[in-house]
């Protein structure tokens, strides 16, 4: 979004019309409130950026269908010019006309019309340039259908709009609703406006509305509308003295018949503007991130570079985007409703005074006076940035322009950096509400993302700290490695032709995250449908499974105005975390996944795992929606965001850890309950503390050996060309086990039935070597370096007989012969070896044997007596022998 510069933020409010009581939609679901419809339609306005239009920033819903709109605002408007009571110079009139037309033309290009032009909606910035305000009202209210008040101002309405009638009427005789207005309506309104500027006064003000409209209608019988208007207001002389081209312009605008009237685009090219059109350069749309066109294509450096760094004073904040400033304003304690209440725009009566007296069975109420506070007051209130500026006055200039070259320091070195590094340790929720911190993060991410994909590694590193909510959509796209011409790829997918999945999609969308205003709006539904269809159509080998809708929701929410990006993110996400989950027959994938999950439960929390197995509460009963939707089906959006901020940094085995962390949060209740209670508990998952869940799943992840979550149906090794040119995947945690080059020391696939029979996960020889830090012959490729602290401690337990053990074993391993450890009941026998085992309870225990079956049985026994973190070496000692890493204890040589 464009920088704030000398603009202000303005807020205005209106009410959407309430729905008739108790009416259902055609699908049997309750109707969408009009305010939500408006909210959905509003979103696109945020992308309409033009120097002649006031940038829309935000919309919020208040109580009782109130909407508050935030947009760029200027205090000065044409109304102020008119108030001076003297005619405006003809040159000025022409400039205003041209600039308004520029704005109108740009809107028309985007399929919108203003319909509410009036002197107080044509604002003037500090340089006296025109900025059109409230230009989106007609669009967002579905041409006025969702509000009670008519859109537009009586004196400026063109005759055809008046003739088409207004929606608001209790008269049943006018059934036919008028068609939406076209671009030419604004030209008439502009004509009236220009006329007023020329004569220096507002016209038609002293007669009542119905007379005014009748007058406008009767203008159709007049030959010369300008003269009639001038005579009516006694300013014929002034009009006659106007330069020829201004008169011509007025005539062109105030043409009665729409078919004879010019469109804004035609007028812009008209000869009246010949002399001045050269002063205006046509507007170039800035290129968005993730667009195919080179972003620097139109970059022109001035001859003298130092011009770029000329000192504009200390006010760096105004150079930030309007949306950023507004976001920070909110964080600094801004409250829209309060601002509007202070200016008495919102006047609410106590509800005790407005109650109805009598209500019929169908909900219709009687005896309630019309509440005046629901009337439209379209005044725009300037939001004071004083508090925000005050809050940020100590923030150093470096914060606004961080240097990215330094790979070491992520935060600028300034006075406030100490404070900021202290902030990093605070809980995420608090960081997200901290004005200075968010400013720093937003600026940093903004710069990094602008340098994407060059700065991809740094985006990863910063994302590990946290992701600023304002830029989450783009940051996620960067983390998912979205690249290429996504827009034209998306456009090229046929999203209209009916496909058999349509019905299911149609049923699922109105049930997906509908508590959210954006996703429950009709616009949201349309976009949902398009993105989902695009995905289904473009992945012919995969099918739509219920749950895909939930998976789509976070991407759509974050990229509401950029479907292509939402689609691209989803298409990148699914193969990474849900490879082949959406196959038509996905049972083998899911079964393997769930089996690995239950092994992970047994690995991390044997007590819980044993209990769940005993009562038969297996993952198949509850965990399929968790994994199939990556938890989007069970959590509300704000929790998904925090969960996925971390999930996107991890590899495809991270979800297992999240699953275990969720179970552990409900541990006490699960342990205390039987099968039925557990089913009930999970049918409607209780509140989960998501920050704790994230923290614990990272911890669990660090304790899990990489190969423990090996799945044969995971995404196979990506080809080298897939890995983009900007270096390797940047971190150990994010690299996939399956991505590593396969050697004969890696894990080997097991049959599903065999896998299911094993309680504990297997780990590969490679992993063992890495974890034991055995220095092998140079031929091994150890996995990418990882921090030493992140490495789990390990205890290798050799369960072969003593003889085998003494013939050669892994250094540091202890020998507990298989036969002598467990009693007949499966209890642990007391002996020195087992007490050593008990002494290392917190380590990862790897069972080594030359007979796999013995190892797995041994592991199962250990799990039974609640030993955590037990795993088995895949391939056993036989595989280990080939490495030549076995040693013979020295005394016996």
């Amino acid at each position, binding site marked *: 979004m464009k920088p704030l510069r000398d603009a202000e933020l303005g807020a205005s409010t209106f009410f959407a019309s309430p729905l008739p009581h108790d009416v259902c939609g055609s699908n049997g679901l309750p109707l969408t409130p009009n305010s939500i419809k408006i909210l959905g339609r509003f979103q696109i306005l945020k992308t309409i950026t033009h120097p002649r239009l006031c940038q829309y920033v935000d919309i919020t819903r208040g109580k009782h269908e109130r909407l508050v709109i935030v947009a760029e605002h200027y205090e000065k408007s044409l109304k102020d010019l008119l108030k001076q009571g003297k005619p405006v110079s003809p040159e000025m009139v022409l400039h205003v006309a041209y600039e308004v037309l520029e704005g109108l033309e740009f809107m028309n290009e985007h399929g919108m019309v203003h319909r509410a032009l009036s002197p107080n909606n044509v604002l003037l910035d500090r340089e006296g340039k025109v900025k059109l305000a409230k230009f989106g009202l007609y669009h967002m209210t579905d041409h006025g259908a969702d509000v009670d*008040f008519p859109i537009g101002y009586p004196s400026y309405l063109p*005759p055809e709009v008046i003739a088409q009638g207004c929606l608001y009427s209790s008269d049943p005789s006018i059934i036919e609703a008028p068609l939406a207005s*076209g671009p030419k309506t604004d030209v008439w309104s502009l004509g009236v406006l220009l006329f007023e500027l020329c004569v220096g006064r507002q016209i038609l003000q002293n007669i009542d509305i119905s007379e005014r409209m009748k007058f406008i209608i009767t203008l159709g019988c007049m030959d010369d509308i300008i003269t009639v208007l001038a005579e009516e207001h006694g300013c014929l002389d002034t009009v006659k003295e106007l330069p020829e081209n201004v008169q011509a312009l007025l005539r062109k605008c105030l043409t009665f018949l729409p078919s004879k009237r010019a469109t804004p685009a035609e007028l812009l090219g008209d000869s009246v503007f010949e002399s001045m059109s050269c002063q205006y350069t046509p507007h170039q749309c800035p290129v968005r991130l993730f667009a195919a066109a080179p972003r620097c294509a139109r970059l022109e450096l001035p001859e003298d570079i130092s011009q770029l760094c000329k000192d504009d004073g200390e006010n760096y904040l105004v150079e930030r985007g309007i949306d950023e400033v507004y976001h920070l304003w909110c964080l600094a304690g801004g409250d829209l409703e309060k601002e509007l209440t202070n200016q008495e725009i919102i006047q609410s009566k*106590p*509800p*005790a005074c407005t109650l109805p007296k009598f209500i019929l*069975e169908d909900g219709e109420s009687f005896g309630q006076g019309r509440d005046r506070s629901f009337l439209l007051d379209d005044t725009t209130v300037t939001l004071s940035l004083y508090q925000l500026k005050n809050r940020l006055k100590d923030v150093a200039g470096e914060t606004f322009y961080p240097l990215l070259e330094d790979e070491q320091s992520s935060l600028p070195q300034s006075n406030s950096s100490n404070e900021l590094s202290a902030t990093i340790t605070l809980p995420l929720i608090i960081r997200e509400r901290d004005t200075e911190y968010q400013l720093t993060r937003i600026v940093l991410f903004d710069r990094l993302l602008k340098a994407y994909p060059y700065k991809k590694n740094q985006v990863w590193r910063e994302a590990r700290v946290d992701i600023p909510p304002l830029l989450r959509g783009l940051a996620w796209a960067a983390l998912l490695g979205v690249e290429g011409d996504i827009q034209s790829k998306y456009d090229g997918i046929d999203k*209209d032709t009916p496909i058999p999945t349509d019905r299911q999609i149609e049923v699922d969308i109105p049930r997906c995250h509908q508590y959210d205003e954006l996703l429950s709006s009709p616009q949201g539904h349309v976009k949902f449908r398009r993105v989902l269809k695009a995905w289904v159509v473009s992945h012919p080998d995969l099918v739509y499974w219920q749950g895909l809708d939930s998976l789509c929701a976070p991407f759509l929410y974050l990229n509401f105005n950029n479907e292509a990006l939402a689609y691209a993110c989803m298409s990148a996400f699914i193969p990474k975390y849900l490879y082949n989950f959406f196959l038509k027959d996905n049972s083998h994938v899911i079964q393997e996944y769930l089996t690995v999950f239950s092994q992970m439960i047994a690995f991390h929390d044997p007590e819980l795992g044993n209990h769940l197995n005993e009562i038969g509460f297996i993952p198949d009963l509850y965990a399929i929606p968790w994994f199939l939707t990556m938890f989007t089906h069970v959590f*509300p959006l704000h929790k998904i965001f925090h969960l996925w901020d971390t999930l996107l940094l991890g590899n495809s085995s991270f979800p297992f850890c999240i699953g275990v962390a969720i179970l552990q949060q409900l541990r006490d209740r699960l342990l205390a309950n039987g099968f039925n209670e557990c089913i009930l508990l999970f049918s409607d998952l209780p*509140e989960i503390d998501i920050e704790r869940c994230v923290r614990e799943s990272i911890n669990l992840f660090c304790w899990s050996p990489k190969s423990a979550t090996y799945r044969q149906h995971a995404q196979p090794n990506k080809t080298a060309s897939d890995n983009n040119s900007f270096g390797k995947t940047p971190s150990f945690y994010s690299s996939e086990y399956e991505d590593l080059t396969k050697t004969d020391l890696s894990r080997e696939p097991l049959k599903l039935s065999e896998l299911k029979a094993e309680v504990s996960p297997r780990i590969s020889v490679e992993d063992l070597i890495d974890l034991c830090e055995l220095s092998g012959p140079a031929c091994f490729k150890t996995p990418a370096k990882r921090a030493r602290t992140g490495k789990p401690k390990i205890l290798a337990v050799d369960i072969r007989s003593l003889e085998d053990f003494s013939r050669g074993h892994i250094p540091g391993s202890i020998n507990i012969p298989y036969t002598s450890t467990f009693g007949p009941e499966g209890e642990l026998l007391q002996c020195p070896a087992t007490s050593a085992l008990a002494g290392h309870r917190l380590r990862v225990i790897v069972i080594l044997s030359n007979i796999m079956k013995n190892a797995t049985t041994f592991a199962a026994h250990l799990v039974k007596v609640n030993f955590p973190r037990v795993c088995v070496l895949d391939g056993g000692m036989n595989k280990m022998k080939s490495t030549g890493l076995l040693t013979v204890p020295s005394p016996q040589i």
Partner: protein
Amino acid sequence: MQAKMRKNKGKTNTIEKEFVFEFKAGNHHCVLKVPLQFPLKENVSDLHGRIMLLHKIPCFVENDLKNRLVSFIKREMLADYDREAEAALQRLTTGEVDVNKLTNIWAKAYSETTLEHARPEEPSWDEDFASVYHELIHSPASETLLNLEHNYFVSVSELISERDMELKKLQERQAVEMNKVMQELGKSLCDQDVNTVAAQHFDAQQVLENKWASELKHVTGIQKHEYQEWVMKLHRDLQNPNNSTINEEIKVQPGQLGEAGEAGARLFEEQRQLEESFTIHLGAQLKTMHNLRLLRSDVLDFCKHRRHSSSGVKLRRLQTALSLYSTSLCGLVLLVDNRVNSYSGIKRDFATVSKECTDFHFPRVDEQLDIIQQVVLYARAQRSSKQREQPEMTRNGGSEDKNKIIDRNSSNILPGEFYISRHSNLSEVHIVFHLCVDDNVRSGNITARDPAIMGLRNILKVCCTHDVTTITIPLLLVHDMSEEMTIPWCLKRAELVFKCVKGFMMEMASWDGGISRTVQFLVPQSISDEMFYQLSNMLPQIFRVSSTLTLTSKR
């Protein structure tokens, strides 16, 4: 009517137009014809992508096609707009649409919906008083206000006890007299005489009652007037503190009624009152928290003031006063019969309670009921005129015999309908929803479609639109227990109401965006302790109770 108009909007007739695109590929001259439906609903880029894909258009004409398509659509749309607009103008010139009517509708639309064109607001005493009071009660003056209110309350209570005393005396005297008469019956007096005496007694009672009623009305009228005057004066004085006249605090008049007896009664009362609270979460993904409470108590306990001025009572009173004009009101559902009056049963008891203390803000109960009766008649008239206009809409099921009942007596209300009264003088309640129920609720088999349940839903809806954040609902839909209400009956009824209220509360989240509320379920006092505990066990099975925070757990 508006809804109907809007429905038609989607059906504006579409026109098919053909887009023709010619291009050369090598030596071939290709012509592409695409029929398009106007007004066009799809996105142009999508349409373009689809045409490219479907007709396998070579990529070298891609941009050309796009430009031509865009300009074609733009041109045709403009032509449509012009045609529609001129057709509308044409309708005016031919007189098909009346100019006066049209402009009047416009004028009406502006004057009824926009502040700029609306008639200036006539000052309303109610709202001025409301804002003044709300300001004062949130200032240090609140103490004084409450003391004043209490003093007025005490004097009314004295009046009432005097009345009760006099009535009692009269009744005693009459009883003695009647006894004498009865002894003489068959001797010197006949049945006729007894009847005459009885009639005389009745008349005497009526006269006395009326006398007291008018006396009370007079006193409360004066009190209300004085009070309102005083509040306005206080407000003025506080605004310019120089010439303040009321600075001395108003001291609390100690109630003269025996406190000991009251305290005993209260102890007894609190023993009988059982209550249990729950915190619940509603919603599948996004959860909202609400408070539920199950209470065993008399419905009028929420209305009655305790007569002695103990601090707890004062606090409660302050709480009610503070929130009177706020956005967190307290409501109560009272089950009434189909007549809007206060002559019998619970309606009479309620009216009596509400007269125990002057209402300084809202009209007296009987005045409110009179107004409501007018509104009911108006609503009926509206309804029947509407039904005459659109007879096809009423042609579903039982509505016809319902209409017959209405025709018989249009001043009565039907089951599921309710009227609302407002009170500032009740102890814990501001708003009373008088929900009409019939004898059906006493029988066992009502369903979720029962008018009484639908009435509850509408009540909750009004709670949403008018910020009633605490609502008390009779769980069994009765105020008193009777023979036929067995344990299974109670359980079944409680389950139904719990489940329906749960559904309505989930629905409410979509009406108001999920505001936390308190819902109190009330059961009659005559219910047994075991029954109460059975119900309190049932509640957490139906609502999801939030997990308790166990501090001892290691995680």
